[in-house]
């Protein structure tokens, strides 16, 4: 596909998703309370979108990933919450996981 064809096919969809992201940040920022590790990871991943570097999807996925290499001592939860935190992710991820979202398959 040419760049023009890609834009014709996906621009409106991408624009819609970008506005959803902006609205999500507005919603979070007007809510009372503190950021947690997920929002910090989210902002770090968002910063990777700007610029001309290629493989942006891969870079965003890496920004959310557990960078460690050794198995954890014990699985005390089944779910994943979408962002890595050295204390929270292996211990109580279920607390942050959306019910019925991808504990399956």
């Amino acid at each position, binding site marked *: *596909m040419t760049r023009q*064809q890609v834009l014709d*096919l*996906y621009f409106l969809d991408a624009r819609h998703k970008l506005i959803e992201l902006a609205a999500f940040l507005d919603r979070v920022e007007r809510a009372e309370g503190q950021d947690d590790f997920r929002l910090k990871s989210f902002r770090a991943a968002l910063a990777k979108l700007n610029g001309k570097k290629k*493989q942006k*999807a*891969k870079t965003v*996925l*890496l920004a*959310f*990933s*557990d*960078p*460690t*290499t050794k*198995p*954890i*001592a*014990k*699985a005390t*939860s*089944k*779910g*994943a*919450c*979408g*962002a*890595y935190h050295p204390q929270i*992710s*292996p211990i109580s*991820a279920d607390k942050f996981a959306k019910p*019925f*979202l*991808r*504990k*399956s*398959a």
Partner: protein
Amino acid sequence: MKYIEPHAHMVSRTTDDYQHMALAGCAAVCEPAFWAGFDRSSAAGFHDYFCQLTEHEPKRAAKFGLQHFCWLCINSKEAEDVKLAEEVIALIPKFLHCPNVLGIGEIGLNKNSRNELRVLEMQVELAAEHDQLILVHTPHLEDKLKGTRLILDVLKNDPRIQPERVIIDHVEEHTVELVLNCGMWAGMTLYPETKCTPARAIDILETYGSEKIWMNSACDWGVSDPLAVPKTALEMKKRGHLAAAIGKIIFENPKKFLRQSPNFKLGV
């Protein structure tokens, strides 16, 4: 368009889903053993599940003209209890002779724990001992990269495992290259909210090529779409992919991998 659904948990789906898949051109559906959404209380629960996969579900699929195949294992979400896993793994050999069994799967990791890794090694041993194909589940979200690396290490360290007889499922942009570089097959799972969307799956195909790669819906009891594969085929068509290229991904590639099992025989 004719396609194979290489990963679907049909015991969790309705007869309407079977009908819609058949109408969309599905020729065969392959069902890996997985977590029921709750922990089974004993090995006897797994025995019943394996009977369901090898006896009952093929009959349900046949009512809609679909061939049904399955994979057997204890999944990683129930692998923290190693004693239970040992009891379940001991049950599997007697089911390997059932005519619709393709291999051991979906084994793998969930939270990347030591016990999960131990149970993964036990099931790789089972597959090697019985010369079975292997289908691997990779972890979710933030755990996927680390889990994929740990799984690949286990498989690469066993000289009996032939990489072309292994499929590593649920790859995304940050793991697909790791898998393909090991000579193993890669599965892309098409989900509405996690894993790959149709557009991203096609991006991966356009970036990494169409060798040793397939797409599946992995539809189950959660948010998922049993028609995700034909919908992605339609998206490929919109992007200008030719019918032969689409057919390779949704039919020829899964057939090529799966027919390494003597039990995978497609009817007319």
